[in-house]
């Protein structure tokens, strides 16, 4: 479904990802794990078209997307929940969700989808008139995911959904990720520092170090790999 081949990208004089190759097939959950600054977020931003790539190619459903504008990429069905959530602070919860459906015109189905995300996260329904900036961290994460779902993505990119959240909330979020994957057949690309939790819901995983993919394999094989256990799982 999504394929990255020899992708290079960076900011100014710094090359954040040097050579990234990875592939996702329809319906999978894959995870990209790595340390701070390894190039995880840059990879996602390159896919979304926010950070232009310097070399290589990115294709989605056999179409090159690396020269497309971010809005065209969203239109094709790739949606991202960025690191730090990026809620529109002065828009209400409702308006934040409306923004998620920005490119859609089917009012009726939008209404249905709103009901659907409220069923996933009932707390958001209570807060629908409140400004996004006033929500707690966990609620913001829920809102960010809901907003992304409003675009009915085929591929959902999640950047560190567990960051800064309480363990109980993290558990809930990961459960819902799995649920989204199963219920909607949404392909999920999960970037995490919390490797243990991520690998437990993922089908396959990649490990990135200094802008290069160093390991890849099924989630189970990664969980068993001793190097990875030492470096990322804290075992």
């Amino acid at each position, binding site marked *: 479904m999504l394929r990255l081949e020899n992708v290079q990208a960076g900011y100014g004089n710094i090359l954040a990802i040097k050579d990234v190759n990875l592939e996702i097939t329809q319906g999978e959950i894959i995870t990209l794990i790595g340390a701070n600054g390894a190039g995880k977020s840059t990879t996602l931003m390159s896919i979304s078209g*926010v950070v232009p790539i310097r070399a290589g190619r990115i294709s989605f459903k056999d179409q090159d997307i690396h020269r497309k504008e971010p809005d065209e990429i969203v*239109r094709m069905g790739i949606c991202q929940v960025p690191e730090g959530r990026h809620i529109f602070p002065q828009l209400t919860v409702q308006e934040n969700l409306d*923004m998620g459906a920005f490119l859609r015109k089917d009012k009726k189905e939008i209404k249905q989808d709103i009901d659907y995300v409220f069923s996933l996260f009932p707390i958001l329904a209570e807060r629908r008139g409140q400004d996004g900036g006033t929500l707690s961290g966990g609620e913001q994460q829920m809102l960010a995911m809901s907003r992304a779902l409003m675009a009915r993505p085929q591929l959902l990119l999640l950047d560190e959904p567990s960051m800064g959240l309480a363990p109980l909330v993290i558990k809930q979020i990961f459960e819902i990720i799995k649920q989204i994957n199963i219920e909607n057949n949404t392909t999920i690309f999960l970037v995490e520092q919390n490797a243990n939790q991520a690998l437990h819901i993922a089908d396959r995983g990649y490990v990135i170090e200094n802008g290069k993919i160093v390991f890849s394999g099924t989630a189970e094989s990664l969980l068993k790999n001793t190097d990875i256990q030492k470096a990322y799982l804290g075992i």
Partner: protein
Amino acid sequence: MDYFIELFLGGITRGAIYALIALGYTMVYGIIGLINFAHGEIYMIGAFTSFIVATVLSIYGFPLLAIVLIAGVAAVIWSSAYGYTVEKIAYKPLRHAPRLSPLISAIGMSVFLQNYVLLAQTSDFLPFPELIPEFAFMEPVAHIIGSSDIIILITTAVIMIILTVVIKFTRVGKAMRATAQDRTMAMLVGINVNRIISATFIIGSALAAIGGLLIASHVGQINFYIGFLAGIKAFTAAVLGGIGSIPGAVLGSLVLGLTESFATGYVSSDYEDVFAFSLLVLILIFKPSGLLGKAETKKV
């Protein structure tokens, strides 16, 4: 009491004029964080375009109403075109540049546009055709408030309402607010940010053009330099109200207009601007983000 009312109405009219220009500043600032110094020049170009079109039409003997409408539309079209082009040339390539670079680019653009109009047209003051007639029914109160004041007040009020509705409820308006609050995220939900920024410049320029037409017709003359002082004042008004905030720009403009009017009326016009700027300093000392500006919540 009459004197007070006269000064009050004069101040409100002046405030309304500032508001039309200040809105462009505040919208552009809100969305890309740039003090668009060339905005005053866009206003001047709007006034010039309407002057040229109106004079040509009146020479060819068009009726007044047609002149007003065509001149107004032409001013809006060309000012917007200039606003759009200026953004594409001078600001868009600088999106990721250090913060002060677009500011210098804006100052350069302002100098350029002034001299462009000076050279292509003239350095002389030109008489602006009287597009707003003196209404007969206004005659009894004409010594207090003129017809053009009324037209300015009504137009500004209507534009404010339309703008508020557009920003609050339309797709473009929502996209503008989203882009202003978080540009990266706006991209990620599928907003074409470049197009929204262009739209902001176009709307801001259109408002400035209407301002240009109204003010030029009210004052009765224009030259290439009118944008500079009006621009600085409108910018002051926008900051006073809290830059980036649309109701703030309107409130700031009214406060500024009233302050200047009363300062002239009750103290001395020598220090009119001193009062205006002192008020600004005072308000910012006690409310560092302006009257209606939202204090920036910085997360650490």
